[in-house]
């Protein structure tokens, strides 16, 4: 049995049936990390002690013949924006290089309560700001499918770890596409749940009205299993919704025949790579063949999504990142004479170029005289973008689009042009702004064998539907 190619269920059953142990699974994955990750760079910190303790716990339950929980002995990785008690959490930034959180993120705690073994913390763009993982203050992540290409971002480490068999599942975060776009680039499944579905307690905040936690996995079923584990109201996060959590796994096998799938022409406009278009169009044909009705819909405000996103996300970020002042837990510059100088120099030394750029843009958009023209304007367009989806979802059950306009690009290709980098998120940001769920699943490859992603968007709290569509597509 190849221990690094297992799905969640296969890993759990293999332990339950005593064909292997959680310890063997953890060790096989650490060996794989040792062998592969020098070239890929997905992990920033390993938490071996913590993982092995959990392995021991699981192996004892298995030895007693008791039933194992859903994620028992599943080796997972956590994007380094989620707090882990006693394990360094950097957010990919030098400003948190030495930060050891005193508490656990709820999503991580729920994964571990279900038996998952946390192997370590995964590289990402600094404070989750980026689309290529090149903004990590430590080192870029390389795409396991082609080491000269980016894995996408900002959850690039989370996607690469799954793609390279260094973890069975990972958690990522999505503010403008940061789960779905890297999933697409690395050829794995990435699910962004509805805003409020998963608690963000312990997630290092980037843009609070847009931040989501979700899984990256090898299969659609694994994504459903992880979502079922981490979803649901958490009193520690007042934005987590008090909405019933269905059994996403049980609902996977409900038929999709007769579902209405929307196709929006705005997602197939100029800028979409031909090979991506062909792959997505043939995926849509396949879904039609599976009994779905394909319905044209219009999302007319789509071209305004990126400017709207970059105003709202940066405004919120400028406020959220004000806390890094060198006093309580972040990097402090040496030798400052006054408090003000200490703040400035600590932030100057601790933040990277893209983070500074976004803090500046956000601060500008919120400053006196510009608030109405920029921030308020963006909030109004956010309403229009959300209404587009309301109208479309009056006619259809889900909407299918490409996840990204291109397959993975080369390292360095877009680093000198922030705007070009921002446009890599053109098909993903709108779902974050509207708060609807979206999943990216592999739907073919380019001639250069780079993965292509199909995105399926759903109604608020409609994860079951998009998971079902994804499952049927993947199985056919």
């Amino acid at each position, binding site marked *: 049995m190849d221990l690094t190619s297992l799905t969640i269920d296969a890993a759990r059953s293999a332990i339950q049936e005593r064909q292997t142990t959680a310890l063997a699974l953890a060790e096989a994955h650490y060996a794989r990390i040792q062998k592969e990750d020098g070239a890929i760079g997905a992990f920033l910190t390993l938490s071996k002690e913590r993982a092995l303790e959990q392995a021991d716990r699981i192996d004892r339950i298995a030895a007693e013949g008791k039933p194992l929980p859903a994620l028992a002995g599943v080796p997972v990785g956590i994007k380094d924006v989620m707090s882990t008690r006693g394990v360094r959490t950097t957010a990919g930034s030098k400003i948190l290089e*030495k930060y050891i959180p005193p508490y656990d993120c709820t999503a991580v705690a729920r994964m571990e309560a279900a038996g998952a073994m946390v192997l370590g913390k995964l590289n990402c763009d600094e404070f989750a700001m980026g689309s290529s993982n090149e903004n990590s203050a430590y080192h870029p992540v390389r795409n396991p499918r082609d080491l000269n290409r980016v894995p996408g971002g900002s959850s690039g480490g989370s996607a690469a770890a799954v793609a390279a068999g260094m973890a069975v599942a990972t958690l990522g975060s999505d503010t403008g596409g940061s789960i779905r776009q890297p999933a697409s680039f690395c050829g794995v499944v990435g699910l962004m749940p509805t805003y409020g579905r998963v608690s963000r307690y312990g997630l290092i905040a980037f843009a609070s009205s847009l931040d989501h936690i979700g899984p990256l996995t090898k299969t659609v079923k694994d994504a459903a299993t992880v979502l079922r584990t981490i979803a649901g109201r958490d*009193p520690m996060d007042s934005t987590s*919704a008090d*909405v019933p959590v269905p059994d996403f796994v049980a609902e996977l096998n409900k038929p999709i025949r007769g579902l209405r799938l929307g196709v929006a022409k705005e997602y197939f406009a100029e800028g979409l790579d031909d090979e991506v278009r062909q792959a997505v169009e043939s995926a849509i044909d396949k879904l039609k063949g599976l009994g779905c009705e394909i319905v044209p819909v219009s999302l007319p405000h789509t071209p*305004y999504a990126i400017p709207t996103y970059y105003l709202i996300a940066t405004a919120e970020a400028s406020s959220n990142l004000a806390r890094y002042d060198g006093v309580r837990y972040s990097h402090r510059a040496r030798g400052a004479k006054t408090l003000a100088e*200490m*703040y400035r120099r600590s932030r100057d030394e601790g933040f990277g170029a893209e983070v500074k750029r976004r803090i500046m*843009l956000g601060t*500008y958009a919120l400053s006196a005289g510009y608030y109405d023209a920029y921030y308020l304007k963006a909030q109004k367009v956010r*309403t229009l973008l959300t209404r587009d989806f309301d109208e479309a979802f009056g006619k259809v059950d889900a909407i299918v689009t490409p996840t990204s306009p291109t397959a993975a690009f080369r390292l360095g290709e877009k680093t000198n042009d922030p705007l070009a980098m921002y446009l890599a998120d053109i098909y993903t940001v709108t779902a974050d702004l509207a708060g609807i769920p979206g999943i990216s699943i592999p739907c073919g490859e380019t001639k250069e064998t780079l993965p292509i992603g199909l995105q399926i968007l759903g109604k608020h709290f409609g994860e079951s539907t998009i998971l079902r569509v994804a499952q049927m597509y993947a199985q056919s």
Partner: protein
Amino acid sequence: MKVTEKDVAYVADLANLELTGEERRGMLRDLNSILDYIDLLNELDTSDVPPMAQVSDRYGANESKQGSERFAYASREDVLEGLRKSLPHEDALANASDADEQFFRVPKVIER
């Protein structure tokens, strides 16, 4: 050009950033290029459109209620340690670069 050198200095000041001369020049170029693109939003007449600050107001637990009443579930009694115990002093100070047993230490704030 929308943003001037003076604006960059003013905004950096608001954001508690110093920025080197080179960083300021880069910021001037990047902010202007991004804001030019953002001008696209002015094509839309939004005079009658309400702003949307967050998504949560679309799924209040109690749809029959209005405003903050819909989010009653998101509030709790304002009592000491209502959700969990506070962090022990030692843990709360553990990540500070300078602290004594009681407080975070910072450079002098008031000159006399």
